[in-house]
């Protein structure tokens, strides 16, 4: 049924991450974990998948001697998200 939906985004956790990143300029890994209630390991794997697809940018640095991972959505990610929502609307027969 959902074969046409973008498989990268059609996953609960990845979609949740992209939905958060579309609403903010940038977010820390800890913030994403807090909002999605995901485990650090699982979230890390899904973030890597989104990064490999070119949908998000991930930068790593240090904050108060602790590692800090910051995620931002890329223009490609925005485009993919918009297409995904359009496809969903088509499935649901929602007309703009």
């Amino acid at each position, binding site marked *: 049924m*959902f074969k046409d*939906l973008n498989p990268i985004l*059609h*996953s*609960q*956790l990845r*979609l*949740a991450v992209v*939905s*958060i990143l*579309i*609403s*903010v*300029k*940038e*977010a*820390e890994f*800890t*913030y994403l974990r*807090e*909002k*999605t*209630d*995901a485990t650090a390991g*699982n979230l890390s*794997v*899904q973030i890597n998948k989104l990064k490999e697809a070119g949908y998000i940018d991930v930068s790593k640095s240090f*904050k*108060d001697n602790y590692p800090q991972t910051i995620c931002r959505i890329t223009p490609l990610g925005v485009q993919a998200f918009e297409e995904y*929502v359009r496809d*969903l609307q088509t*499935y*649901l027969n929602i007309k703009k």
Partner: protein
Amino acid sequence: MEQEKEFTSQESLALITKMINKTRRDYLDSGLSALLWGSVITICSLATFVNYKLNWRVLDYIWFLTIAAVVPQIIIAIREGKNRKHRAYEDDLMGGIWISFGISVFLLSYILSVYNVSEQAPLYLMLYGVPTFATGYARRFKPMLIGGVACWVLAIVSHYTPYPYSMLCIAVAAQVAWFIPGLIIRKCYLKAKEQHV
């Protein structure tokens, strides 16, 4: 949240909405800045009003408290920046608006003192309304929208109010525009913080 659970298009849309709403409900500010300036401006204007009768020399310099308040403001801004786990799109815009407001207020104070303008309250109140309304508008935060409009209404009221009573208009504006919204933001911030602990 599970990794690859099958879900329907309705569930997808519901998840998108839920996540977007979760970020919208986040309070980026601790409310301390609004409380600080709401308190400082209220104290200064009330002290000026009271001093009209008392005529204490020391209270003539009460407005220098606004310069001293810049120090805790910087500390608050640094701390909020450090604790921030995400940045919203409007953050830079808001920062720019409030910095330009601060510069404009100090420039206005200088110009008014040079030209010895007696009726100053309407000009300050008009200026106070700009960043307050802009913040309320950008963040869809009604108390600050009301506060901004209140500043402009009080600017008109103060024009017809003789000194020192016009100082009361400034005190009311500081409460409505900053202190009360600050209390609301603080309450929401602490509540959100409690939920995350």
